[in-house]
């Protein structure tokens, strides 16, 4: 790019969206996905676009990329890239623009890369397509690009298949291809959501570094305000297809104009703001004591058993020992694959385990010891309510099952209604099917089901991670109220450190199947903590801390 062009683009926004609307034709008439959007991004700027799921964030990205489904209608507006209206471009012209002048980084690198092509092939094809390089040139250039995004062995990485690289490495390759042709604008669509805490921090740092170096105008889409606060200069808040508020990060955080924005900010978990009292006495008689529990995966195949061949077993949990006191909330944190859920499954009898579990003075050695009384006392809530609620049963059937199993089963109608009220759902929801409920409502039903047997311990396995921030806040509030009322202990598994620091009494940190340490929640950021715990804490952005 020559100098004169540089100054030209300096004055005008690189990307400007003017008065743009988008409708989807549906059987029930048009659905207004985007309503008269006005946005602009200058060179060297990062604009954060924040909103809940279904607010139209991703629709806007598809509009800019001109990759819309057939039922999309555009009643008006313009999308200008360096002064060219993209709405006027033919598909063929757009093909030459995509990847060269505007590119995109996607949410999940494990699905956005073709599983049957090597990473190098997928990077080199961009260079061949847009820069006219030969295969050899593109491959060489690709290696340089990979080195530039911080991959240690770029030549090797080029030859690897996607499944041979880690999530972070794959996302670096995707980022390298987005930056490959020095585009004017890049759209980042939740680029770290699918990655674990420490990796996502590294990817974020890489993004900030490359952005500063190239000065590319960036649209950073996220549902996580804390994340956007760390990266973006300006933030636009989108609600049901409408930009309700726009301003610098500082303005938005210190002086939000809209209630909606305020709600979003308040919903972001802030570890400084503890939601529970530290009044749980650590007793000699804990409710649950997990003693040297190990879980191994992989069973001997028939043939291996015959021939006596040794099979390699994968360790899910390695001699875990911890305890939960009555009425305590014990958080378990760790990145994906650290064995958090494996432990939860072992404790509910969904995984075979070695070792001992003491529950309320009883010794549990294997699945056979987990009788009805144990199952009544230990309940689990899963991450995805869509998967854990039977889609063909009405809420009434779903909730009356534990009542019949563990309760007296009398006057089900009233009991189910009471349960729904307890989780702040209308009694009439009993007649609905799960798909007629929103994600947050479904998770409330799952919570009601877990509490139906009046358990002593509820295991919450990432129960808020599929929910929006504001919904998450209300579900957490509900859980804490239920806990106050019933004195149930929670084993709260999450990867959201800020959230767990708000609500847990103690936090257990896990890493690759090992328990690193169990510490009091307010002491988790002390410098005496284990190396890994410190790295975790450092990796997590805290939104409010910067502005308060």
């Amino acid at each position, binding site marked *: 790019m020559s100098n004169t062009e540089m100054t030209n683009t300096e004055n005008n926004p690189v990307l400007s969206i003017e008065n743009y609307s988008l409708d989807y034709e549906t059987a029930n008439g048009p659905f207004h996905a985007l309503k008269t959007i006005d946005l602009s991004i200058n060179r060297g700027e990062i604009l954060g676009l924040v909103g809940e799921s279904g607010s139209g964030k991703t629709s806007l990205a598809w509009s800019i990329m001109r*990759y819309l489904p057939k039922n999309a209608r555009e009643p008006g507006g313009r999308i200008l890239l360096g002064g060219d209206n993209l709405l006027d471009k033919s598909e063929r012209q757009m*093909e030459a623009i*995509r990847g060269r002048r505007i590119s995109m980084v996607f949410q*999940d690198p494990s*699905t*956005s890369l073709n599983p*049957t092509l090597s990473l190098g092939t997928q990077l080199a094809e961009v260079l061949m397509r847009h820069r006219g390089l030969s295969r050899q040139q593109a491959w060489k250039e690709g290696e340089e690009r990979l080195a530039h995004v911080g991959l240690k062995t770029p030549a090797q990485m080029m030859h690897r298949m996607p499944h041979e690289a880690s999530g972070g490495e794959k996302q670096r390759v995707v980022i390298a291809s987005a930056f490959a042709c020095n585009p004017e604008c890049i759209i980042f669509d939740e680029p770290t959501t699918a990655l674990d805490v420490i990796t996502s921090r590294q990817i974020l740092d890489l993004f900030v570094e490359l952005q500063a170096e190239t000065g590319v105008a960036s649209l950073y889409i996220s549902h996580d305000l804390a994340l956007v606060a760390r990266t973006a200069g300006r933030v636009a808040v989108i609600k049901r297809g409408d930009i309700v508020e726009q301003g610098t990060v500082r303005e938005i955080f210190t002086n939000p104009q809209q209630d909606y924005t305020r709600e979003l900010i308040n919903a972001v978990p802030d570890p400084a703001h503890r939601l529970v009292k530290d009044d749980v006495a650590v007793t000699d008689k804990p409710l649950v004591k997990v003693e040297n529990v190990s879980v191994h995966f992989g069973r001997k195949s028939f043939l291996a058993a015959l021939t006596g061949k040794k099979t390699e077993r994968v360790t899910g949990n390695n001699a875990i020992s911890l305890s939960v006191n009555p009425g305590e909330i014990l958080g378990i944190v760790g990145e994906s694959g650290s064995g958090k859920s494996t432990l939860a499954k072992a404790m509910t009898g969904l995984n075979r385990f070695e070792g001992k579990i003491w529950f309320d003075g009883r010794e549990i050695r294997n699945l056979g010891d987990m009788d009805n009384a144990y199952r009544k006392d230990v309940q689990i809530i899963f991450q995805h309510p869509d998967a854990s609620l039977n889609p063909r049963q009405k809420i009434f059937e779903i909730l009356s099952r534990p009542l019949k199993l563990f309760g007296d089963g009398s006057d089900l109608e009233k009991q189910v209604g009471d349960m729904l009220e307890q989780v702040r759902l209308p009694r009439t929801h009993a007649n609905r099917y799960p798909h007629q409920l929103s994600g947050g409502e479904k998770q409330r039903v799952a919570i009601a089901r877990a509490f139906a047997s009046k358990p002593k311990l509820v295991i919450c396995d990432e129960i808020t991670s599929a929910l929006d921030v504001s919904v998450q806040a209300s579900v957490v509030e509900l859980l804490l109220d239920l806990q106050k009322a019933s004195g149930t202990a929670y084993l709260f598994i999450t990867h959201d450190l800020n959230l767990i620091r708000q609500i847990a009494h103690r936090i257990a940190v896990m890493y690759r199947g090992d328990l690193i340490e169990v510490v009091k929640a307010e002491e988790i950021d002390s410098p005496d903590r284990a190396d890994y715990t410190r790295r975790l804490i450092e990796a997590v952005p805290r939104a409010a801390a910067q502005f308060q």
Partner: protein
Amino acid sequence: MIVYTLFVVSLIVFAITQILPADAAVMMLGENATPEALDALRQTMGLDAPIWQQYFSWLWHVVQGDLGTSLRTGQPVGPAMFEALGRSLLLALFSIGLMLVLAIPLGIIAAIRRGKIADMVVSLVSYAGVALPEFVTATIAVLVFADWMKWLPPTGYVPLTEDFFGGIAHLVLPVCVISIILIAHVSRMVRSELVDVLHTDYIRAARLKGMSRGHVLRRHALRNALLPTITIVALDVGYLLGGVIVVEEIFAIPGIGRQLIVAIQARDLPAIQAGVLIMAATYSIVNFIADILYAWLDKRIQYD
């Protein structure tokens, strides 16, 4: 694994022939044989031994390549069966070849023109193909192309080594009849796989990198869409072995299907055992090859 499968198959085959209401001794000596003569024959053939002994002695011979002696002809079963298998495989190979040449392009066209006329025509033809059993299509084909048009010979088999063009002419109708159902099946499979693949994130990602539609189809979509097709084709070999029996009978081709039918009609136990075992072995081997091929093409899969 494949050895294990064949072992189980041999057990089942042997068990089935034991259940059949046929006494080998009666078959050989005829209905009017004296009980003493029958007993003597049973003794020499080892038929009075316990069943498991009979099984292992049979299995031992099979492993050594001796499939037994036909009760009907008194000749060894093995050579005749393998010769017939060769003719059937020739028929099957031509059918699969024709199917691949037609089904894959048809499936691709249907997938990328989804909902358009081309898609509907392909769908309609495939439904018709799946719905019509081969004895119907075969009869129609013979009637039209052999009887009315007189383009092709109606039945019979001529070895390619004897008369190449004559042999091909005799194969055209049976090959077409067998491939119709395969084409219908596989083209629908290719279509639905490709439609799924075209909706994946990585296809969208490739399009958003500026790759053209054609490039994305060739480089990104086809390989992923055709992988499951390998499995389907291998499974179809099972159908093919069954379909071949009917088609060989109609077109009078002395393949393994026809041999088997003759053996069943004559209650020729060793021949039935050999025929079924050979067919099962063919099926297992084809699926084994398909698994290997799949793993070779899809690097994510590894076999120990």
